[in-house]
């Protein structure tokens, strides 16, 4: 061993998971060899170890200039590989006689798929970019990056530089995501993607979204690009499933795509449970996902919310996760009322759940559906409305008025909810319906009577809303 070399090594024993990245270690030993003398061997606590390991990542501890060059080189390589992938088909690359001969012999169109060495190069560069972004996000989350101590000018310069480098990485990751989504048939045989590769942009996007707590943070961490990455991956899942229908590869490809979609939905649900700011972002994400043939992401999320077990969570602290999820329902209804209307059956059991936030959110979502032009607004010619079922087929709603009445009845019933917060939310829903002129004429008197009755409510919040219902027109 070189006596002058300062050498560090980790002994890996245990394991811990951090946002999909596994750090395996239990005990850390730091040996310092200097002039052939063993100087010190020490162990440090687990928390310190994680911190040390993060600080030991080369990409974050390199000189700023070298780091910038590394990022540029990595992004450039990935962008070139992506553009080569895009142009591969038109290239008729190696469409020489040997290739055609092989193709004819095997009956398999191997010329449509890039060589394994290309796939490896693409995966390797994508993984390295992912790792750099992972370290950067961890550093930013730990407050070492954007909130570095120092004078204001220095901090601003550092923040700007960090923001620019994060944006450049996110843009490059987006280019790679688009290339993978667009060229699945060229990248993998039978269009069956390697899930470990395809999910990489989403994995980093989830970590970025964790930090997007406000408008400023959202811009600083390139949350818009992160959402675009997820939307692009989801879009490719649904479009590829549709494209291969009728071919021999249907089951393999759709299984892979369903698995990928399932992973994304599970991760988003987990994020919504953990972070208050995630519900609006998820609703926005559902808006970004292509609607054709169906907005599978929104449907799957609604289905997952419908499956949530809310028993025994009344005033329990465990309900906080579900409280974070609840706003997603009315936010999605605002953006895509038709999707929520089509899948409202999944949510109905939650009207009897113990978490009042869910009940309030469902009531608000119903009000949005009833008062929006795209939904079931009174006066719209919805009788011939076609509703898409989950399997992509469609059926006609015989009588939209019937659905409208059922939802209005539901709201009328909920005005007597056990929770004053939900009663207030329901009365607010009635205000919205009245103000958007979506209330059927035959409901004017019953709603007025209901509002008068609620003026006797025991909470001021409900009484105030009831007064507003009376005043609205």
């Amino acid at each position, binding site marked *: 061993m070189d006596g002058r070399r300062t050498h560090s090594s980790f002994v890996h024993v245990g394991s811990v998971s951090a946002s999909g990245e596994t750090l395996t270690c239990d005990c850390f030993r730091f040996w310092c060899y200097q002039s052939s003398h063993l100087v010190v061997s020490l162990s440090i606590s687990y928390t310190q170890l994680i911190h040390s390991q993060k600080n030991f990542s080369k990409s974050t501890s390199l000189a700023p200039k070298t780091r910038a*060059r590394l990022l540029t*080189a990595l992004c450039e390589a990935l962008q070139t590989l992506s553009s080569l992938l895009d142009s591969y088909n038109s*290239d008729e690359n190696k469409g020489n006689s040997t290739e055609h001969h092989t193709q004819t012999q095997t009956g398999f169109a191997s010329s449509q798929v890039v060589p*394994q*060495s290309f796939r*490896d190069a693409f995966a*390797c560069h994508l993984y390295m970019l992912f790792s750099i972004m992972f370290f950067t996000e961890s550093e930013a989350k730990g407050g070492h990056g954007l909130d570095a101590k120092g004078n204001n000018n220095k901090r601003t310069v550092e923040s700007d530089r960090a923001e620019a480098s994060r944006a450049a990485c996110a843009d490059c990751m987006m280019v790679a995501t688009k290339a993978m989504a667009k060229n699945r048939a060229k990248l993998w045989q039978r269009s069956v993607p390697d899930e470990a590769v395809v999910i990489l942009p989403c994995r980093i996007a989830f970590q970025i979204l964790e930090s997007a707590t406000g408008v400023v943070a959202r811009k600083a961490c390139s949350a818009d690009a992160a959402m675009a990455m997820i939307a692009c991956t989801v879009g490719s899942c649904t479009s590829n499933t549709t494209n291969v229908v009728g071919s021999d590869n249907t089951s393999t490809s759709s299984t892979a795509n369903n698995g990928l979609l399932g992973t994304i939905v599970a991760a988003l649900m987990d994020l919504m449970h953990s972070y208050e700011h995630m519900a609006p972002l998820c609703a926005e994400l559902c808006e970004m996902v292509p609607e054709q043939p169906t907005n599978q992401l929104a449907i799957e999320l609604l289905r997952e919310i419908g499956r949530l077990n809310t028993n025994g969570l009344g005033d329990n602290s465990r309900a906080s996760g579900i409280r974070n999820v609840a706003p997603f329902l009315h936010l999605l209804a605002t953006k895509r009322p038709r999707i929520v209307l089509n899948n409202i059956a999944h949510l109905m059991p939650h009207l009897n759940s113990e978490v009042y936030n869910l009940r309030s959110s469902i009531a608000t979502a119903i009000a949005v559906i009833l008062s929006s032009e795209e939904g079931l607004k009174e006066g719209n010619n919805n009788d011939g409305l076609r509703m898409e079922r989950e399997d992509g087929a469609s059926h006609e709603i015989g009588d939209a008025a019937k659905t409208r009445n059922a939802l209005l009845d539901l709201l009328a019933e909920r005005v007597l909810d056990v929770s004053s917060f939900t009663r207030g939310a329901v009365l607010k829903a009635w205000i919205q319906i009245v103000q958007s002129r979506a209330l059927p004429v035959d409901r004017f008197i019953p709603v007025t009577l209901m509002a008068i009755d609620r003026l006797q409510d025991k909470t001021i919040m409900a009484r105030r809303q009831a007064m507003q219902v009376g005043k609205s027109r």
Partner: protein
Amino acid sequence: MTIQQRHNKKSTFPIPSSLHDLERAPYNLLPYPNDFDDDDEAARADSFDALVAKLEDGNEQLGRCGLDLFWGGESVEHDDEEDVWMDEERIQALYTLVR
């Protein structure tokens, strides 16, 4: 190696579960390349710069030759000696810089 075999060749870069897994099989990368000079801070910085320069050279080659780099000229006879763009040296450089 026929083209079909080339297509069916097993991946040499399956996505690892953690970055440090790259130091184990099948990747067997080192924290630093064998010729990495870290006698002092200046030498260390130069070594890192050299690794980045290696990546930049590779990028230039990729931009110049495009997909031809991955088809390796289709020479069946010189299979073992085929010139791979993403060789062990490049992966090692990437790992040392990123880890």
